[in-house]
């Protein structure tokens, strides 16, 4: 950090006041340090500031934090384990590699099926899933707004579920 204008006392120019802190922390460039040193030599306010600041930092140095408990990691990993186990329980039926690979396709199929069930209108055409899962089209003759809302909700839940499944890979368990 370079002190550009040192004609004014840093304490009288609020935007430069931090320079005194940087000076005390020896975070200024050599050139700036010497400029400030020359100023401090003739400015009693800055001299008081720097000596007071050094006192504060020396006092703060005496405040050492307690060492971390030896069982910190054990407790943390137990908490992580509990969460991971919960997900494992939920995902146990979907843990085979084949299913994982086709996870997005399966989730999309489920999504379409649930959407079809939820729509449940008297005249609903069969869900025409074509070659690609992403190309599935649902043709509905009569759809009520509530039905659409419910379907969208279900889609969102399934999407989140699918994201969680992707996030939980086999090696992620600690």
């Amino acid at each position, binding site marked *: 950090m370079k002190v550009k204008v040192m004609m004014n006392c840093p304490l009288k120019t609020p935007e430069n006041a931090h320079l005194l*802190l940087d000076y005390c922390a020896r975070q200024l460039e050599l050139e700036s340090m010497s400029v400030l040193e020359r100023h401090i030599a003739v400015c009693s306010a800055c001299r008081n500031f720097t*000596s007071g600041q050094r006192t504060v930092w020396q006092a703060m140095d005496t405040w050492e934090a307690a*060492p*971390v408990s030896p069982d910190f990691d054990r407790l*943390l990993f137990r908490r992580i384990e509990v969460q991971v186990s919960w997900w494992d329980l939920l995902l146990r039926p979907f843990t085979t590699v084949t299913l994982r690979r086709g996870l997005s396709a399966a989730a999309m199929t489920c999504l379409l099926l649930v959407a079809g069930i939820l729509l449940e209108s008297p005249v609903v055409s069969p869900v025409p899933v074509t070659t690609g899962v992403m190309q599935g089209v649902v043709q509905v003759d009569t759809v009520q707004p509530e039905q659409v809302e419910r379907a969208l909700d279900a889609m969102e839940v399934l999407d989140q579920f699918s994201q969680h499944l992707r996030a939980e890979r086999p090696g992620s368990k*600690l």
Partner: protein
Amino acid sequence: MVERVKTGISVAVATLDFDAELMLRVKEGDGASFGVLLEKHRTPVVNFLYRMVQNHAVAEELAQEVFLRVYRSRGTYEPTARFTTWMFRIATHLALNALRDGKNDRLQERLDDDSGELPVKQVFDRRPSVEQSMVYEAKMDEVRRAISVLPEKQRAAVLMHKYEEMEYSQIAKVLNCSESAVKSLLFRAYETLRARLAHMA
């Protein structure tokens, strides 16, 4: 000097990349990388939280929550900022919430209860006299009290500046404010501390 600065910058960048890289490995399912991050940042995070809430048990509880959140967020992690900035933002958020939620209601009580927790052990190791121990404890207690009366944001800024040696820009990102606001926070905080601790010169 210039070389030293350059080396410092490259070290900082390397550190940034290393932590972010580790976190990206965690994202890919590498649990061991999370262990490395934990090993590296456990003590700074616990110490920062301890100095914020001034209770060791609460600090460790909060630190566990920090690392749990880091682990839980691995799936959505993107290295858009320094890893430490992100982690300390979580830590500061939790500490400020804990203080506001009233976990500091018995702060004064805890200050008294905890006052001998560490220093006694450390001072004991150095085999000081009883008077030295008492002087040391009294000094530390004064520092703790002086910091505990600072407004929460000032306290967080001072702790990150002094003990974590963070730059203004990084503190600004953690506290979600401008760099000039951080400078102002620090200036006011140190002003208070200078007034309260002047007699310790």
